[in-house]
């Protein structure tokens, strides 16, 4: 598995798209830092971008990479290597290369502007952590979908649909639900709803760190109490890990059963 991971990782890290992806983060973050001297503002702007781009790019890359490396995968399958090692290795290679792009692209400008000397160091690390976890989650989901669907178009469509559901539609439904049931106390319900979606959870974790909780008054207080506590933080991280593990297990299951 490690060999396949190494191969996939170095294959991807040499790819043009990885450079473009990292370069985008680099330029964006650098630009923001040059325009604004306030690090917390830059962390917020980066958060907006990371929370949209990480899942989207991971989804696209995941599907593309699977379909493009199909022939190589078939070649590997004919060798005496365990199936699970092949696919888990490929998935890990993909997710790691995406994470490295993010860490390098967004990390270097912040380091250049001395983030660790400022009070934003914690927020910056939470941002990177969330970016990395989101890359892993969505790479796993897209890999799973691609593995399930022989048809490229169908695979692409489904993967994008899942991204759209989690990134946009989910929030829409949540808002709809909140305004329908606004006569009831909804703090806990909205808390649970946003913990269940990895993108929302990452956003809320960051927003609370960035002190926007004061804007949320009662809701913010409930959130802060939950996420500020050790148990709450543990649950959030656990939810993010579960989101990574379930599609990874799905990849395992499908690759063992599928007839190639």
């Amino acid at each position, binding site marked *: 598995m490690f060999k396949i991971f190494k191969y996939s990782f170095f294959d991807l890290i040499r790819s043009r798209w990885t450079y473009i992806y990292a370069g985008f983060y680099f330029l964006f973050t650098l630009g923001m830092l040059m325009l604004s001297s306030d690090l917390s*503002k830059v962390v*917020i702007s980066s*958060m*907006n971008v990371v*929370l*949209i781009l990480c899942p989207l790019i991971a989804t696209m890359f995941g599907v593309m990479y699977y379909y493009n490396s199909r022939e190589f995968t078939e070649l590997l399958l004919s060798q005496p290597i365990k199936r699970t090692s092949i696919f888990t290795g490929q998935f890990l290679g993909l997710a790691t290369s995406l994470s490295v792009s993010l860490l390098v692209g967004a990390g270097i400008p912040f380091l250049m502007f001395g983030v660790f000397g400022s009070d934003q160091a914690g927020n910056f690390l939470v941002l990177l952590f969330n970016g990395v976890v989101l890359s892993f989650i969505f790479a796993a989901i897209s890999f799973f979908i691609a593995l399930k669907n022989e048809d490229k178009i169908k695979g692409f469509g489904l993967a994008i649909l899942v991204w759209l559901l989690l*990134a*946009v*539609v989910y*929030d*829409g439904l*949540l*808002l709809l639900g*909140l*305004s329908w049931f*606004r006569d009831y106390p*909804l*703090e806990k319900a*909205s*808390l649970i709803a*946003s913990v269940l979606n990895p*993108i*929302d959870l990452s*956003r*809320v974790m960051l*927003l609370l760190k960035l*002190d*926007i*909780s*004061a*804007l*949320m*008054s*009662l*809701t*913010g*207080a409930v*959130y802060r109490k939950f996420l500020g506590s050790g148990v709450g933080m543990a649950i959030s991280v656990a939810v993010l890990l579960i989101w990574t593990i379930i599609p990874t297990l799905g990849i395992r299951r499908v690759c063992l059963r599928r007839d190639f």
Partner: protein
Amino acid sequence: MKNNILIAALLFAAFPLLSNTLVVCPDCPVNTIAKGIALANPCDTVLVQSGTYYENNIEINKDLTLIGEGMPVVDGKEQGEIFTVENKYFYIEGFRIQNVGRSYVEDRAGIRIRKSTQFTIRNNEFDEAFFAIYLQNSSKGLIEGNHISAHSLEEANSGNAIHAWYCSYLEIANNVVKGNRDGIYLEFVDNSLIHNNLSQDNIRYGLHFMFSDDDSYYDNEFVDNGAGVAVMYSKNIVMQRNVFRDNWGAASYGLLLKDIFDSEIFHNRFNQNTVGIFMETSNRLKIQQNEFSENGWAVKMSGGNQTNILSKNNFLHNTFNLSVHSAGTDNVFSSNYWSDYAGYDLDKDGVGDVPHRPMKLFSYVVSSTPEAMVLLRSLFIDLLNFSEKVSPIFTPENVIDETPLMTPLPVFGKV
């Protein structure tokens, strides 16, 4: 005639004799302030030299000038009020007054002034003085250059730094008040000036008006209080060139206006408050040439606000620039600079050609469903705001700036 001059000359010669100076020091024959005051004749000066005096319940009923030399300390040992003045004239300067002690039964004060018509409290220091300066039924007083600090934690067992009740013609200037319940509390106080004060870390309000009319406050700074300034049930208040900043917390405001009428809010700066200005049932206010930057809400209007004018203000990078609770009011929003204005100015007259709608849809949603704040900065909300901006359906029709400015105005420090 000659006799008259002689009498006048004699009187002048005798004048220093009439107004004696009495010295109090720890090693003098007169070694307590209370003794000094008892011995002094009306119009005398009591000079208290440096040292620590453990005294309380000092009552003053005659015209006296109290001067502290080298900051003498008057310590109440947490046992009650220190100076109680009930007299027309009073002057005090240069004391450090501390440890008055909390009470749940009575409003103990560092200096209490009753029924005075000419008094000055100047350059004193107060530490843990519960109600440091307590004024009742008094007028024409100057409270200047005092430094009042406390370390209050709860509203219920803390006092106000400067507390005035049924007063008029006060001047409260250049004081520093920190860590009390209210920094400056005015109830039924008319025709007074409050200026150049710093009010910081007070757990309720930096400055609090109740039923006080025709006052003005200017050039003050309100930092990190529960709410910077609360103006309630008052009219004709002029608020100018003040700084409201870092009043940040779940229920914090820069300026809280409730039931106030005919007032002017000019040239103030609101920076990083949860809510810059919160208004409720306030009418005929002029809010002009202020700067709102990096607040949660710059201006939040609750119900019943009528005929207010919000113009020529700068709104810079607030999470929400404006939230208006009810539609159908006749408030005017004109000629402001909005940092999120996306219009253009083809004729280069400095005024945008497209009207600006400062109230975002999300702001409207949040005002009816506060929990929806969870979705702040999500992609869906951005899409929602954008579509509402293109074709407004939900946000109130009349919350619109027809003449948004293209560049920020020079606001602060210019009259």
